[in-house]
């Protein structure tokens, strides 16, 4: 009952500089929607010897992506990296609900009105669909363009394994038990802000990220509300145009087209602005998670110091304590080093993405407004000449 597949979506909207390394190119050229289950076709082209073939495709579900994300998060070695945020679950709730309402209200509308609404809804479905494909694609591309993560064994399995991954997924759950994930997420803010920071860089980052996160979360929510209102206005124009059509032949034509443009403004706004904010909100959460892990590592190190002191006092198990302390320190240093790298490149990435999207959004707004003016002026001239 629903579209079907979609081909390449063109420019990735929210992230940049991905998929540039020819040694590992990933994209999602195709996806299928059955009921609510989306089946993504993950296509890989590679020159790396780690893979069995130079080019291959596999079908994957959303849950597979989540599995991959979680295994990466739970890998100790990656504690010092910003793990790209997991793509959100495909959410067709809104258009589905609207479609349902439309079906109920069919009797009260003219055939034309109904068809227009249906068209709009199908376009909305398609937009949600495109969005979800995009977001899953970006996730993979973030991984493939990361020096360390691209070499992850599970990542390779994800790309290559031509059987159903669900068995692996279940096993993984049992193995890790969602250790890190189940940690009290809400506590991380407290922990992060609680530690005594010796490093200026991290001190600044911490302050910045905590504040920025709450601001961007708020902006995302407000942008979403704004976009929804815009869609409502576009929908009203559909009804108005249909009724005007019934009333008189001329007047309706412009409304018929205006609603289309208004609708398109709403969805472009969605893509550029809202998606941008939404994506970076998640990314910042991922950055915060890094800070959290580092904070925990620092806490561990501090504990190990105390433990060593205690051991020395009691003259008991000193070598173990020393070793433990060394490990903690190493871990902490490693995290700090890689963390610094990650956070710096993150900032650069973020600035570039914002720039690109803000420019594109402004350009689209101008384009739509100009189209609208032409359209409206045409109608005015037509009406005046009659």
């Amino acid at each position, binding site marked *: 009952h629903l579209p079907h597949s979609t081909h390449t979506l063109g420019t990735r909207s929210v992230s940049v500089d991905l998929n540039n390394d020819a040694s590992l190119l990933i994209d999602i050229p195709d996806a299928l929607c059955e009921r609510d289950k989306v089946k993504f076709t993950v296509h890989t082209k590679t020159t790396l010897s780690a893979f069995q073939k130079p080019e291959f495709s596999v079908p994957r579900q959303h849950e597979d992506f989540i599995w991959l994300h979680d295994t990466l998060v739970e890998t100790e070695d990656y504690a010092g990296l910003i793990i790209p945020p997991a793509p959100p679950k495909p959410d067709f709730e809104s258009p589905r609900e609207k479609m349902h309402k439309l079906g109920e209200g069919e009797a009260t509308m003219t055939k034309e009105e109904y068809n227009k609404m249906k068209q709009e809804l199908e376009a909305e479905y398609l937009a949600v669909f495109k969005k979800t494909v995009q977001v899953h694609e970006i996730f993979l591309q973030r991984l493939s363009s990361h020096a360390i993560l691209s070499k992850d064994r599970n990542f390779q399995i994800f790309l290559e394994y031509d059987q159903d991954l669900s068995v692996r997924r279940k096993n993984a759950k049992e193995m890790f038990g969602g250790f890190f994930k189940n940690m009290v997420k809400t506590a991380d803010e407290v922990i992060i802000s609680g530690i005594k920071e010796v490093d200026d860089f991290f001190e600044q980052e911490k302050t910045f990220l905590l504040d920025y996160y709450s601001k961007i979360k*708020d902006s995302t929510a407000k942008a979403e509300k704004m976009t929804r209102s815009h869609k409502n*206005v576009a929908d009203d124009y559909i009804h108005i145009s249909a009724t005007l059509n019934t009333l008189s032949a001329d007047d309706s034509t412009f409304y018929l087209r205006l609603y289309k443009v208004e609708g398109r403004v709403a969805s472009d706004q969605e893509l550029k602005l809202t998606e941008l904010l939404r994506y970076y909100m998640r990314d910042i959460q991922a950055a915060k998670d890094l800070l959290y892990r580092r904070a925990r590592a620092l806490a561990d190190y501090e504990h190990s110091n105390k433990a060593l002191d205690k051991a020395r006092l009691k003259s008991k198990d000193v070598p173990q304590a020393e070793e433990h302390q060394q490990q903690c320190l190493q871990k902490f240093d490693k995290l700090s080093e890689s963390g610094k790298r990650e956070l710096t490149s993150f900032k650069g990435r973020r600035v570039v993405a914002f720039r690109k999207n803000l420019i594109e959004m402004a350009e689209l707004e101008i384009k739509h407004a100009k189209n609208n003016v032409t359209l409206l002026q045409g109608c005015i001239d037509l009406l005046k000449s009659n």
Partner: protein
Amino acid sequence: MADTARDPPPEQTDFQELEDGEDLFPEPAAAPEQSGPASLPAEDVSTNSNGPKQDSLFDDDPEDLFAEATEEVSLDSPERDVLLSDGPSPAITPITPPTSVITPRIGHAHDDMFTHSSFDEIEEEEGGDSFDIHIAVSDPEKVGDGMNAYMAYKVTTKTSLSVFKQGEFSVKRRFSDFLGLHSKLASKYLHVGYIVPPAPEKSIVGMTKVKVGKEDQSSNEFVEKRRSALERYLMRTVKHPVLLKDPDVLQFLESSELPRAVSTQALSSAGLLRMVNKAADAVNKMTIKMNESDAWFEEKQQQFENLDIQLRKLHASVESLVCHRKELSVNTALFAKSAAMLGNSEDHTALSRALSQLAEVEEKIDQLHQDQANADFYLFSELLGDYVRLITAVKGVFDHRMKTWQKWQDSQMLLQKKREAEAKLQFTNKPDKLQQAKDEIKELEGKVQQGERDFEQISKTIRKEVSRFEKERVKDFKSVIIKYLESLVQTQQQLIKYWEAFLPEAKAIS
């Protein structure tokens, strides 16, 4: 004219009044009192039930016009008390026959009217773009305090029409004055087939807020909405070539003092009676089954039914649009604030600046949305509301035709009965009774003729009115839609300006 002295049976009179009524005064006692010819100084101050006075001196259109202009509610009309307390418009005086009610104003009109040979010609002169009268309603001013307070509006007329004494003049009016004007016009013209523009609606809630002195946005909006509605109402009324010349209209526009219309108070007993009568009315409508011999009427009625449905639907959609646009404005403003905060929080300088600029653009856009919502409303939505009410008036006029037909049929049936009775009487030896029967029959024959003429007249008037209405509607809609589209164009052009100013800011991020 003498033979038109009729005794409208009291019930019938009341019945007529009830149908016409926008404001009815429960005066059942009045009717029987005045129904005898003796109590009527001149029978042409006949009730509405007699229809227009083309049966008086003149027999064709211009005279109709004239007659309409001066026909006033009769003595046996429930409205009498109201009108007398309102202070008369010249035509009110129940004593004088219409032909001699020539006030200075009507004198002008009189000349004009008699030099024209047809209603159509007059119409053409007034119609189209050469129609030279403009009315503005402005300067709402609160008068008084507490629950007795009211809003006074300035009504300014600019015109070169000769029916007016001056070219430009103003008066102060309050809302109930407008309602009073409408009720007078409705009582004079609706039942003979003229589409009288309905007055703006009362709003107890809205007005109470104003009275109580709530100086907030919603009460300001209410006053503006009302002011605009009053203006449209007056313009529509004067656009009607017949109504324009009505002495009540002229008085309303010109006279500095206007007696207060009493029966228009929201919760008065008159108001309650009106509601009851409207309900009775509805029931009555359902029971009249007319043999429509004229396909045009059937067709038109259907058309107006459809138009009614479509307009209501459209009105609802536009109201939804206004609501959503206002929401959009609010949400845009919220987003703008949030974006500003985000910009402050951003540590990359150029990006921070760009985000602040984005916030400013969105703030301006929010204002644009608000302005657009106002245009949506005042231009579009209110127009639709006006037309939904107008269509109700149109439908009312069609109903009056049905009732006129019914009346004619009733007279015919009564005549038939009387004839049968007379035939029977022929065989009895009661010369008095026979004579009486013959007299009654003669009277009824006249009535039947009158009924037929009334029916033809109202049918004719309705045809003209409908054609005028359709022309006006098309013009009205077109002009409003053009204005609305132009407002949309302006909004879009502003948007272009704002985003074009923002673009270099976004590009400056590095």
